[in-house]
């Protein structure tokens, strides 16, 4: 990146400051996770000792076996996958059409509708939780997968529309005009030309929406009170009271919950960061 400009030596931070700064940054960001992993392989006795043990002599996997075989966590994991995937997928389908409409058509009230989508994305969730709860109860959707999938669209749909619109806008409209002259319909244009060209955009929307719903806590707490639909965050919160806070098990459950996100994030990091910068500050 700096190939051409390297002859202009830019003043920079002194080397030692970069080293210290980076070390501090890495330590602050990673230490809690390292401690989480260490705590998850300790026995109860090793957890409750002063001074703390930095690495147990014989790491135990008892906490993991407790979490995986003697708790509801696997079920909650499955629930989380169903709800996150369902909500992300449904939002993506709706968003593809809506974003195409916003990106390619001029119509009355478009700026207003677009800013309403942005407002929807920023809305304080606490302010609408009560009426949502009453509405879902009326529709019989409390404690169902569909209820959660729908409610999570509040989070995923505006975001997906906003991000995809900016992707679609960047695809040259001339390609479609040529196709239309050849007799293609609007839908054919969307699915044959624009969509295949926006796969990176779609992938980043999916990752972002999936991660956000996977991590969501407050909606799940209100709308999923039965263990048949509870998601992982609720399971984790429950663990602290249900087992009188067995910290080893809590830490093991935390690792189980973080792992899929960490893998997804590390493999898709470029898309993730790209989508993020596009979504949040592009006017």
């Amino acid at each position, binding site marked *: 990146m700096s190939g051409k400009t390297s002859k202009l030596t830019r*003043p920079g931070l002194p*080397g030692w400051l970069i080293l210290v700064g*980076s070390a501090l940054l890495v330590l602050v960001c990673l230490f809690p996770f390292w401690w989480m992993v260490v705590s998850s392989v300790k026995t109860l006795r090793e957890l409750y000792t002063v001074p703390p043990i930095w690495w147990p002599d014989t790491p135990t996997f008892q906490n993991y076996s407790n979490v995986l075989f003697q708790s509801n966590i696997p079920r909650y994991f499955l629930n989380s996958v169903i709800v996150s995937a369902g909500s992300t997928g449904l939002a993506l389908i709706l968003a593809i059409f809506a974003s195409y409409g916003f990106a390619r058509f001029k119509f009355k009230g478009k700026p207003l509708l677009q800013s309403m989508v942005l407002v929807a994305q920023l809305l304080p969730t606490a302010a609408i939780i009560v009426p*949502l709860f009453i509405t879902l109860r009326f529709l019989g959707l409390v404690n169902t997968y569909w209820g959660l999938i729908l409610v999570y669209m509040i989070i995923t749909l505006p975001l997906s529309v906003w991000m995809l619109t900016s992707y679609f806008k960047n695809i040259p409209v001339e390609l479609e005009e040529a196709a239309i002259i050849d007799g293609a319909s609007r839908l054919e244009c969307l699915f044959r030309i624009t969509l295949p060209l926006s796969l990176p955009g779609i992938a980043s929307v999916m990752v972002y929406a999936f991660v956000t719903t996977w991590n969501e806590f407050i909606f799940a707490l209100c709308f999923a009170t039965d263990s048949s639909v509870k998601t992982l965050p609720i399971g984790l919160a429950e663990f602290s009271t249900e087992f009188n806070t067995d910290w080893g098990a809590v830490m093991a459950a935390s690792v189980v919950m973080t792992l899929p996100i960490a893998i997804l994030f*590390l493999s898709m990091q470029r898309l993730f960061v790209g989508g993020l910068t596009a979504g949040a500050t592009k006017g």
Partner: protein
Amino acid sequence: MQKQSTGYLFILPALMVLGMLIAYPVAYTGLLSVTDNAGNFVGLENFRRVLAARATPIAFWNTLWWVLGSIIFQVLFGVMAAILLNQNFRGRAIVRSVTLVPWVVPGIVAATTWAWMLHTEFGIINYMLTAPGLIDKPIGWLTNGNTVMPVMIAINIWKMFPFVAIMVLAGLQSIPNDLYEAARIDGASFWEEVWYVMLPQVRSVIVAITLLLVIWALNHITIIYAITRGGPANKTLITPIQIFRTAFDGMQFGQAAALSVMFFGVAIVIVFIYIRTLASNPEEAR
């Protein structure tokens, strides 16, 4: 050449879903706020009651404290990290990835992990402070009324500063090189370059992010709710949690709705300032 109606057809399904899930509940909140639990119209009674509640002013000041404390340090540390990551050094890509980790992990995981690290007797943090003699005896971080809010704010800062860092970094990397060259010809030092070139160039990004952080601080209540539920003795009770508890613990839907209406009013003002800011500098904000 394009028919207007086709555009509407494309956006209609999404708008219907958003209308059902957002516009309708918002309108319904307004209705709930002026009715009692049986659905009778009671005028402003709910507002009067909720404003008279002892917890309301406490929650208001706590919310202010929570938002201000969080965003000031999120922006400060985020910008510092961004300036560091904007340097060319070996391993920069790894440090950058690592920096994002706190932001990516679930809030509930952050909450439980920090709660364990802050454990009074067996927490690693009390050990790290007592062992070298920085404090005499372990502090009950989460039970002591004076420390619990600063600790919550610290966790929130840890969770969100990576976002600021990555956004400001993107802004820093789009600064045209000739600005640096001009500064260099004038013999600017690194810190002068930071002050006169980098910060003014990313100012609009920082403003936009700050507003976004305010909105998020009002929105993301997972950390506080999961660790303290607003306790001890309402020391960490912020307005969104008060709404939540009024509705689901107290079953006072009308009063919760009244509180929601006021909360919503404040939030929507911030949202509109944010949108205006975005709209006023479309070129710089990218």
